[in-house]
């Protein structure tokens, strides 16, 4: 009896007499299993039909993604339609939107799974000892490795960290502990501006700076470090500032009350309290810049040889290694691509590890809640 389209609940107030499908309290309600059940049925059905069609030769090949897409759309339409008939317009809209929201999340997982699985599958082919112990010097075709790129990445990132952390940390200390007036406002504003600098522009800046000193066509690992610190400083400032703000004022006041000078209060009370958060922020900042390609491609250049000094000559880095292996393959393309994927896998592992370490630091060293 609920098949007639239910009118809004206003008419349900008329007397106490049950009106067919008009009463929101007695109108139909789909059982809890209806939506998940229908979705599963649609997905299963779509995959089965597709597989059968593919087996029968009606369509060229079986595509799981296409089948799931068709099944999802079918289930959304079906659930909405049934809900519209049984439950009314408002409930149907609700179910439709919930279905969209869930699909959005699942849709976002597709590229993630695809990227990670491709990198894992393609990268494991050359993820061997030779990859980590050889450079690409005089290597044509098979073999070779990324030792020079890994050394370069570590050195360039280490120098970038050495530049960014003192500047960023002390700027954050200034903003939280000293900063009043126009200078503090200017720094806050320009740190915001700096956050938005595209990485390639940071590379161009480092090039423009080093051209003044070393002349045209300069390529040097340290220039890459400068470019990376332009990207890293705002991240360090922001995260450290937030952490320093979290330190309760009572701690500072207690220190002052005991006659501790301000700078010792900051060094011995404020910084240790915020240390876990600050280190987490720095780790995340490193994770952000270690995968940067564009600025290093411009100012650090690329090379096939080892280079242990950041202050002279071209220096390979892992992201640029991945790019050059892909972009300038020799005659045997597959070997170059395999190395590119292995480099990508190494890079992802490093970045994920840094993220994981950051989370662990937060979890292990977080001051206990409720203090």
């Amino acid at each position, binding site marked *: 009896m609920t098949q007639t389209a239910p009118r809004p609940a206003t008419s349900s107030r008329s007397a106490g007499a049950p009106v067919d499908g008009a009463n929101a309290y007695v109108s139909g309600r789909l059982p809890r299993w209806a939506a998940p059940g229908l979705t599963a049925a649609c997905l299963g059905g779509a995959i089965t039909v597709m597989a059968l069609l593919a087996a029968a030769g009606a369509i060229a090949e079986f595509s799981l993604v296409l089948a799931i897409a068709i099944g999802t759309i079918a289930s959304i339409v079906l659930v909405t339609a049934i809900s519209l008939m049984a439950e009314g317009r408002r409930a149907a809209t609700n179910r439709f*939107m919930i279905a969209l929201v869930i699909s959005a999340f699942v849709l976002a997982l597709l590229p*993630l799974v695809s990227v990670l699985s491709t990198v894992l599958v393609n990268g494991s082919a050359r993820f061997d000892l030779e990859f980590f112990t050889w450079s690409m010097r005089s290597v044509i075709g098979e073999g070779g490795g990324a030792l020079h790129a890994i050394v370069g990445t570590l050195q360039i990132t280490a120098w970038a960290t050495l530049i960014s952390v003192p500047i960023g940390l002390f700027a954050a200390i200034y903003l939280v502990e000293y900063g009043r007036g126009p*200078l503090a406002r200017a720094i806050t504003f320009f740190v915001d501006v700096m956050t938005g600098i595209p990485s390639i522009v940071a590379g161009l800046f480092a090039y423009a700076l080093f051209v003044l000193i070393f002349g045209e066509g300069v390529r040097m690992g340290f220039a890459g470090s400068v470019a990376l610190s332009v990207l890293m400083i705002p991240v360090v400032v922001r995260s450290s500032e937030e952490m320093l703000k979290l330190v309760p004022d009572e701690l500072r006041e207690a220190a002052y009350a005991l006659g501790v000078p301000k700078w010792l209060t900051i060094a011995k009370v404020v910084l240790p309290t915020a240390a876990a958060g600050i280190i987490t922020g720095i780790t995340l900042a490193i994770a952000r810049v270690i995968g940067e390609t564009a600025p290093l491609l411009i100012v650090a250049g690329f090379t096939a040889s080892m280079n242990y000094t950041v202050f002279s000559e071209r220096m390979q880095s892992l992201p640029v290694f991945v790019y050059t292996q892909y972009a300038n393959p020799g005659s045997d393309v597959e070997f170059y691509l395999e190395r590119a994927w292995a480099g990508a896998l190494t890079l992802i592992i490093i970045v994920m590890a840094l993220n994981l370490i950051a989370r662990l630091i937060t979890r292990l060293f977080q001051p206990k809640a409720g203090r």
Partner: protein
Amino acid sequence: MTTPAPGQAPAAPTGQIDAVERRGDRVFSRIAVGAGTAILVALAAVAVFLIAQSLPALWAPEGSFRGTDGTFWDYVAPLAFGTVWAAALALLMAVPLAVGIALFISHYAPRRLAQPLGYIIDLLAAVPSVVYGLWGITVLAPATVPLYEWLAENAGWFPLFAGPASGTGRTVLTVAIVLAVMVLPIITALCREVFVQTPTLHQEAAYALGATWWEMVRMTVFPYARSGIISASMLGLGRALGETMAVAMVLSPSAIISFAVIQSENPSTIAANIALNFPESAGIQVNALIATGLVLFVITLVVNSVARWIVSRHERSLESR
């Protein structure tokens, strides 16, 4: 200022006790001020050096740039268009998706799952752009070819999908998809942050009035979070505008202005153009590339400033409530 005699408290004529100035304090505060000033100096240096290096390109004679006979502005116009166009397409895909995901995490998924689900989306941000580029060119681009052929055949009357479809999939639409994936975690994280701040009382009031879940979201979450969504999108746009490697690796570029998204001739972006051409450039070409970088800087600066302005206006309106 005051160097009080030892053992004697500093005089307090105004009723306020002047703090004792110690050498450590002075050194420490100077270092802090110095670090803050260094940031300002660095940013000023960025602007000055970029401008100084790009001036020669602005006055260079016609015909000294790649792919055009005209002046610098003829050179940069298609690139600037491509930059904005690809980023806008990416945003068109990413924003609805990000809002949906943020809603799912903040208001639909069980509370215990919210944080792990957020981490999963954040994983997308942990993948370096060069890996996205590699994935885009080897996995995504070939996978999109049948879709583009179908679109060109069946929706070719719509100017955006005009044929002939690219045979490699290295089109501006593929680039936009990759960019959308890359900016998705940023927009999602920012949206989530504002969504969870929606006052619980508003939500409970909506439910008490008999609202369904979606009606609750529309009545309480969206009005509250509107400016947050806009500024998150703008920040995502800023990120998409400056993205380099994914575009450089996926797109097959040409110096044209075209709205068609699935053809093999696509406008390149400023960042990708710099990355592709910089290693082999010298002389005036380098100046030209740096000048385009300056244009990119200005574009992202404007976009980010608008985003910040929206946020600050929103914060003020919240405070006055």
